[in-house]
Structure formats: C-alpha cells, structure tokens
C-alpha cells in the first residue's frame, strides 16, 4: 500500500503543521515523511502534529522518521541514517526531555503497540484527535 502525505498549516501561536500519514509508513517511504517535516519547519511551523488516524502500519524506519521530526522541530540537525546505532545511542540521553512541540494524534492500535514496545511513546504527547493535539500545542 502506498502512503500519501498531506500537510496542513494551522495558524496561531505557534504555527502548527498537521502532517497526515495515510497508508503504511515503511522503509520505502519514511524519507518522504522526514522531508515533509523539514519543509514545514523551513516554512515557519514551530508545532507539529502527526495525524496517524489513517496509518495502518509503522515499521522501525517510521519510528526513525518520528524521531527525526522531533529533532527537526527542535532546530537540531536530524540524525544521519548512516551514522549507525552507536552514534545515535550517544544522543539518547539528550532525548529524555520529551518533544513539547511534536504530538501524535489518534494512532491505531498496532501503532500504539509499536510505540509502547519501543519506548517511543514516552517521547511524544499522544492525543485522541488532531484537534486535541492542536489545542495542546496552541494552548487553546
């Protein structure tokens, strides 16, 4: 199944990009998700919501994309995929602080399970809907 990515901007403070991932996020397309976040950040978005309501599958490469998004939204250089496990591991302590400006909206059950089993759920605010996620970011 292909994945489509839709990006919507919600103006406010901060300006939020809602990135909807529709389909299955895997090793063949995770780079597109990262690129969408990079473009949104370059365009001024300072809050990010991944709308996962129509995402049926997320591979470990998708987790990598989520993590890259977290770094992009913090203004960091995203980790180099070729940097390897060791280099990334050294950064890990830095990520105990959660990403205050990246939230995940309505993940389906298989994806929630993957987030839980890998500990990635600790990094992101998770909301039941995209509107709740936007409100959490913009303090509405």
């Amino acid at each position, binding site marked *: 199944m292909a994945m489509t990515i839709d990006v919507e901007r919600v103006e406010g403070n901060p300006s939020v990009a809602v990135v909807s991932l529709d389909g299955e996020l895997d090793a063949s397309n995770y780079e597109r998700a990262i690129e969408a976040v990079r473009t949104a950040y370059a365009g001024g978005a300072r809050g990010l919501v991944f709308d996962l309501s129509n995402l049926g599958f997320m591979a470990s490469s998708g*987790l990598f994309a989520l993590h890259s998004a977290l770094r992009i939204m913090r203004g960091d250089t995203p980790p180099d995929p070729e940097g390897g496990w060791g280099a990334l591991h050294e950064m890990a302590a830095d990520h105990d602080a959660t990403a205050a400006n990246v939230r995940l909206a309505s993940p389906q059950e*298989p994806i929630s399970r993957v987030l839980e089993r890998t500990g990635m759920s600790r990094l992101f605010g998770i909301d039941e809907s995209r509107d709740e996620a936007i409100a959490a970011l913009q303090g509405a």
Partner: protein
Amino acid sequence: MTPESTPDLTEPEPDGERRRLRVPAGVDQLAEVRSFVRTAGADFGGSQRAADDLVQAVDEAACNVMVHGYRGSPGELEIEAALRDGRIEISVLDRGPTFDPTAAPSPDLTHAPVPPRPGGMGLGIHLLRTMADEVRHHDRPGGGNVLTLVRSIDQPREEEA
C-alpha cells in the same frame, strides 16, 4: 540452480497448506510482503493482533535482509507461511551473508528510546523479537539464511468475538 527442488526446510510437515511468496530484494516490495503475511495470518485463523504482530516482525526481518543483507545488490527473498501445531510460522529465506538476529544484542530501552537505523539493527530487531513468540535462525543450505518467526494464533479478541 534448482530453486524449487532445494530442500531448505527440515522442519516437520505443517498441519495444512504451505504458501510461498518470492520477491526481489527491494524495499518497494515490503508492502507485498506485509500483504502476504496479513492474508496468511487471517486465513490460518490468527487473531487480528496475531496477524498485526507477525506483519510487524516479518517486515523488520525482510527489510533487514534487503538493506543489510543484500546491500542494494540484486537478490531475492522467499517468504513461506505455514500453520503448525496451532501456531503460524513465517520463514524469511535469503541468499545474503549469514546473519542471525536472534544473537544480536538488545537495545537498552531503560533510559530513552534509541532511534533505529532505518531498516536495520536496533529497534527493528527488538521489534521482530518481541512481536514473535519464537524466532529461529539457521543457515540455508547452499548459502544464506532461514529466519523463522512463530506466533500463536491467539484467542479472538473481545471485539471480534
């Protein structure tokens, strides 16, 4: 090469049918691999959750072979599905360098999650090991690997009952 006649599996015969999918070793084939596993999981009577777990585990295993086993060079994967003793067994067969993910170290998840190198070591292997009830590796006759992921079919989930 006589691919069909090579006795790759020395396991006892499965309870019922055995299915096989053959795909080129490219990440654009992963969707087809997942579809095959999902269908087999359902047809063999697996719960939704069992099928989801197997899809996750097999995707990680197949991706690992494609990205790190064949390293972009042409190759082929075979995915075999069988039901044996009430458990679904999915085997990933390749002709790449020997690699046993059951022997790889586990990532340290006690402090903070470590992002995986896409398609590779770390969380992917952690996922494939935790999503399956059992993971077995053996060398494939003639070269390569046979990685078998086993998952019980589960009782139906409440919402399906």
